[in-house]
């Protein structure tokens, strides 16, 4: 988790975000894939709208996690706001692995809060480190970002269809790159998700 956070911090600064902007993404947005998408798209010269749209679609799975966790946590008001903020891949995954609701609750909060603290701490360190670096290519940071996306997508490729969809998406995005403004090639691939997901 630590180095993952540091990788994000470095990616943010490399993409032209200030240290504060990079840290705010970890504090407020707090969802790794969406954060990497925001800095990736803005860094490539995309518009804020396409960055927000892509991050929002990526974050929709957190809504499904919330749906899953709500009947277990049973929280209202400010507690629901705090629980919502730490509803991410890791906290939900740990909760799902437990045997009963008491342990699920404990697992969810312990993981969510733990990840939040470390993720933010290391985002700051990564951002600080990267801001001391001149040309990102010299340190290989230009390859670290696509490698991070590989690491994020890899565990999601669970069958042959997923690999086909992934390859189709890469092809479509690359075809659109010379033709459309930055950011558009990414968000357009959602059409592929709809087409491939429509029928069983």
């Amino acid at each position, binding site marked *: 988790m630590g*180095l*993952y956070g540091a*990788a994000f911090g470095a990616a943010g600064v490399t993409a032209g*975000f200030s240290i504060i*902007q990079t840290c705010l993404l970890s504090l*407020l*947005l*707090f*969802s790794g894939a*969406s954060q990497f*998408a*925001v800095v990736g*798209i803005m860094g*490539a*010269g995309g518009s*804020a709208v396409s960055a*927000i749209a*892509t*991050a*929002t679609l*990526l*974050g*929709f*799975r957190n*809504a*499904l*996690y*919330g*749906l899953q*966790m*709500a*009947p277990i*946590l049973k*929280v209202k008001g400010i507690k629901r*706001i705090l629980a*919502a903020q730490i509803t991410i891949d890791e906290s939900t995954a740990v909760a799902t692995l437990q045997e009963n609701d008491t342990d699920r609750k404990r697992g969810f909060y312990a993981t969510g809060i733990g990840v939040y603290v470390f993720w933010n701490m290391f985002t700051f360190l990564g951002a600080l480190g990267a801001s001391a670096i001149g040309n990102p*290519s*010299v340190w*290989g940071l*230009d*390859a670290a970002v*696509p*490698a*991070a*996306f590989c*690491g*994020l*997508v*890899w565990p*999601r490729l669970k069958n042959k269809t997923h690999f086909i969809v992934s390859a189709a*998406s*890469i092809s479509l*995005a690359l075809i659109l790159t010379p033709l459309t403004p930055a950011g558009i090639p*990414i*968000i357009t*691939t959602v059409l592929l998700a709809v087409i*491939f*997901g*429509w029928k*069983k």
Partner: protein
Amino acid sequence: MSQIWIAVIGASFTAFLNKYFGHSVPEKWLDRPRFKRINTLVPIVLLSALVGVQTFADKKDLVIDQRLAGVGVALVALKFKAPFPVVVISAAITSAAIYNWF
């Protein structure tokens, strides 16, 4: 306000809405098979597209450079079930080595 600030604040806001929405709506709202199938594919297409663009795009041109070697090494590392930091760092080292030596 700069585009980056708009992106930071806007994406943070919608991210929270996503999370809070899930905690607050009745389960049947989102419990539709088609919707779930599409939602499983959404991160796959977006993250894959980001891999492609971040590897090959230089503004609006498609180029092959040191990044491709880095990503290739990352994929090999993933194939061998390497943890995330190893994947990212091995890619960075490969890319930096090619950039600095050639």
